[in-house]
C-alpha cells in the first residue's frame, strides 16, 4: 500500500497526542489535584484550599491538544472532498472510520471541561467540598473520561486498518496492540520530555518528584521492550509466505500455474498506484533496524541510564523524544509500504 504522508502524519501525531492524554487523564484521575488548606488568603477567607498541579501537566494538555488537532486535520488532507468530512460521523454502526471520528470529537468534551476548569477556577478552590463544577472530584472524573476517550479513539484508528481482510499485513492480530502500545509509548516519551523542563515540577514535593521520575523511567523501559517485542512478532507474522496466488484470485488455479501476460492497461491506474506500492526487501530490512534502534533502543537505554544516573534529565529526555518519534514515523511508513493488497494478484503479483 502506498504510504501517504497525510495518513502517516495523522496516525503518528494523533496517536502520540492521545497517548499523552491517556497518561494525563490517568494522572488527573488518580494523583491530582493535591489540595492543601489555607496557604493563600483570598478576600480574607482563611478556609481557602490551594490545589496544585505540576506545570508539566499543563504542557501535556496543550501539546496533546495540538497533536490531536493537527493529526486529525492531516487526515482531512487525504480526503477527496474534505468539506464533506462531517458526513463521516453518521455510520458508526458499521464503520470503524466513522466510530473513530465520533469518538475523537467526544474526547474533546472532557478536554474542554478540563481547560475551562483550569482557566476559570485555576488552582484555587473556595472550600473543601467546592461547588459541583469546581469540586476536585469532578475534575478527576474529567481526567478519567479524557483517558478513556483517548484510549477508545486509538482503538478505533487501529481497527480501521485491522478490519480490512484483503490486506494480509493489516488484518493481523498484532495491529491493534501495536497501535495502542505505540500511542502510550509516545505519550510516555512526551511526558518525560515535559517533566524534564526546568520549571515543570516546581510544585512537587521531593518524594512525589522521585516517584514520578521512577514511574516515567520504568514505564519507558518496560514499554520500549514490550512494543519492540510486539513489533518483532508482527514482522515475523507478515514475513510468512502468503498462500494466495493469481490462480486462487482468478479461480483458474486448477488448470495450472496462472501468470499475467498482458495487463488491462498500459499506464498506471488508481489500483496499481495505490495498492501496487512495493518496497525492496533489503530496504525494508534496513528500515526495520533503523526503526527498532531509534524508536525503542535509544529511548529505552537512555531511560534506564537516567534511572541509574538521575542527573541526565533534560538532555536524555529530549534526545529520547526525537529519536523515538523518528522511529515511530519509520514504523508507520513501513506499516503501509510493506502491506500487500489482494487485488495485486490480478495484476500478476505472485502472492498476497
Amino acid at each position: 500500500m502506498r504510504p501517504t504522508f497525510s495518513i502517516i502524519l495523522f496516525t503518528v501525531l494523533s496517536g502520540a497526542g492521545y497517548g499523552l492524554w491517556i497518561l494525563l487523564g490517568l494522572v488527573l484521575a488518580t494523583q491530582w489535584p493535591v489540595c492543601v488548606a489555607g496557604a493563600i488568603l483570598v478576600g480574607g477567607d482563611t478556609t481557602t484550599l490551594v490545589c496544585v498541579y505540576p506545570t508539566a501537566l499543563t504542557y501535556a494538555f496543550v501539546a496533546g491538544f495540538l497533536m490531536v488537532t493537527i493529526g486529525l486535520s492531516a487526515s482531512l488532507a487525504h480526503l477527496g472532498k474534505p468539506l464533506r468530512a462531517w458526513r463521516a460521523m453518521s455510520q458508526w454502526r458499521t464503520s470503524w472510520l466513522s466510530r473513530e471520528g465520533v469518538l475523537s470529537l467526544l474526547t474533546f468534551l472532557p478536554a474542554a471541561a478540563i481547560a475551562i476548569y483550569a482557566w476559570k477556577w485555576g488552582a484555587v478552590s473556595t472550600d473543601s467540598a467546592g461547588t459541583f463544577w469546581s469540586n476536585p472530584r469532578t475534575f478527576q472524573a474529567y481526567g478519567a473520561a479524557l483517558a478513556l476517550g483517548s484510549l477508545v479513539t486509538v482503538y478505533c484508528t487501529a481497527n480501521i486498518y485491522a478490519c480490512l481482510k484483503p490486506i494480509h499485513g493489516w488484518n493481523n492480530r498484532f495491529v491493534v496492540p501495536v497501535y495502542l502500545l505505540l500511542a502510550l509509548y509516545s505519550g510516555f516519551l512526551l511526558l518525560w520530555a515535559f517533566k524534564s523542563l526546568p520549571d515543570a515540577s516546581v510544585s512537587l514535593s521531593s518524594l512525589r518528584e522521585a516517584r514520578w521520575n521512577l514511574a516515567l523511567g520504568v514505564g519507558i523501559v518496560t514499554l520500549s521492550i514490550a512494543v519492540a517485542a510486539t513489533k518483532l512478532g508482527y514482522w515475523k507474522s507478515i514475513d510468512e509466505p502468503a498462500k494466495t496466488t493469481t490462480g486462487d484470485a482468478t479461480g483458474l488455479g486448477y488448470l495450472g500455474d496462472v501468470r499475467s501476460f498482458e495487463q488491462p492497461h498500459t499506464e498506471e491506474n488508481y489500483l496499481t498506484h495505490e495498492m501496487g506500492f512495493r518496497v525492496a526487501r533489503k530496504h525494508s530490512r534496513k528500515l526495520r533496524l533503523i526503526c527498532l534502534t531509534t524508536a525503542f533502543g535509544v529511548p529505552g537505554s537512555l531511560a534506564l541510564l537516567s534511572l541509574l544516573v538521575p542527573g541526565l534529565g533534560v538532555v536524555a529526555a529530549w534526545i529520547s523524544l526525537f529519536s523515538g518519534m523518528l522511529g515511530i514515523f519509520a514504523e508507520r511508513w513501513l506499516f503501509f509500504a510493506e502491506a500487500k493488497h489482494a487485488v495485486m494478484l490480478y495484476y500478476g503479483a505472485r502472492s498476497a
Partner: protein
Amino acid sequence: MTSLPPPSARKLGLVIDLDTCVGCHACAVACKEWNDGGSFGPLPDEDAYGAEPMGVWFNRVHSYEVQGIGNRELEIAAGVKPKTTHSCSSSIADSVLPAIAATQSIHFPRSCLHCETPACVTVCPTGASYKRAEDGIVLVDEDKCIGCQLCAWACPYGAREFSAKRGVMQKCTLCVDRIYNETLDEADRQPACVMACPTRARHFGDLGDAESDVSKLVAERGGYALMPEFGYKPVNRYLPPRPRRDAASAKPATKPSAEAIDTTQLPPLLRWVDRVLSR
C-alpha cells in the same frame, strides 16, 4: 445507510464466460463510453491524450497464461494420476515439431461482483456506499462520498477506482440507468458491456432466481464465484474454460519430410545440388 439491507430475493449480476472471451476490451470501452455520459458520469481522465493517461474504468480485462496441467480435471475424472510437471508432451515421440504444450491463454474481464455482504459498503463512514435492497446492486452516492478511499482498500476484487479529478469513488453500477430505462427498447435494457460483447461472453440476469437463464447457465457450466474465502459472497459468476484438446489427445501433426532427407539415397546430381545448397 451502510448497514446492509436484508438479503434480497432478486440478485442482479453478470455471468462471464472465460471460454468465449477473446480479450477484445469492447466491454470495457462500451462501459466507459456509456458511463461517461450516463447518470453516474462523467468519468474524466487525467492527461487523457498525454504520455500518462489515467482515469476510472469500471471494467478491466486481464490476460493470463495458464501453464501446465492441460486437461487435468479430465485426467482426474478418468482416474489418471495428475502430472506434476508439464513443460512439453513427449507422447508424439517421432514428431519433429515441438510438442504441443498444455498452455492456454485466458482473457479475464474484472468488474464489480455486486457481493451479497460487501465490506466496501460496511466500512463507508458516510453512507455514500450502499447496497440496494430491491435488487442487490452496490452503488456509490457521489454527492455523499468524501473520497476517503477506504472502500477501495476493503475490496479484494479491485472493483472501485477513485477519481482524482472528481474527488469521489466510482464503480460499476450494473448500468442501473439502462436496465430500468423505459426510454430504451426493451432489448437494450441490459448493461452496456453485455450489449457490446461480440462473442456473447457476458450475460446479465437475476442470479437469485434458480429458473433464470443465467442461473441455468451457471448450473450447466459450473460457474464459480471469485475468492469466496473472503466471505463477501459475490453475485457474479465466471464460467470456466471448456477442456482443451491437449497434446495427448490431439492428432499428431502431419509428419514433415523435408528435414529428414537421406542424401545417400539420392542420385549423384541431386547429391551434388544438395551439397551446394547446404553450404
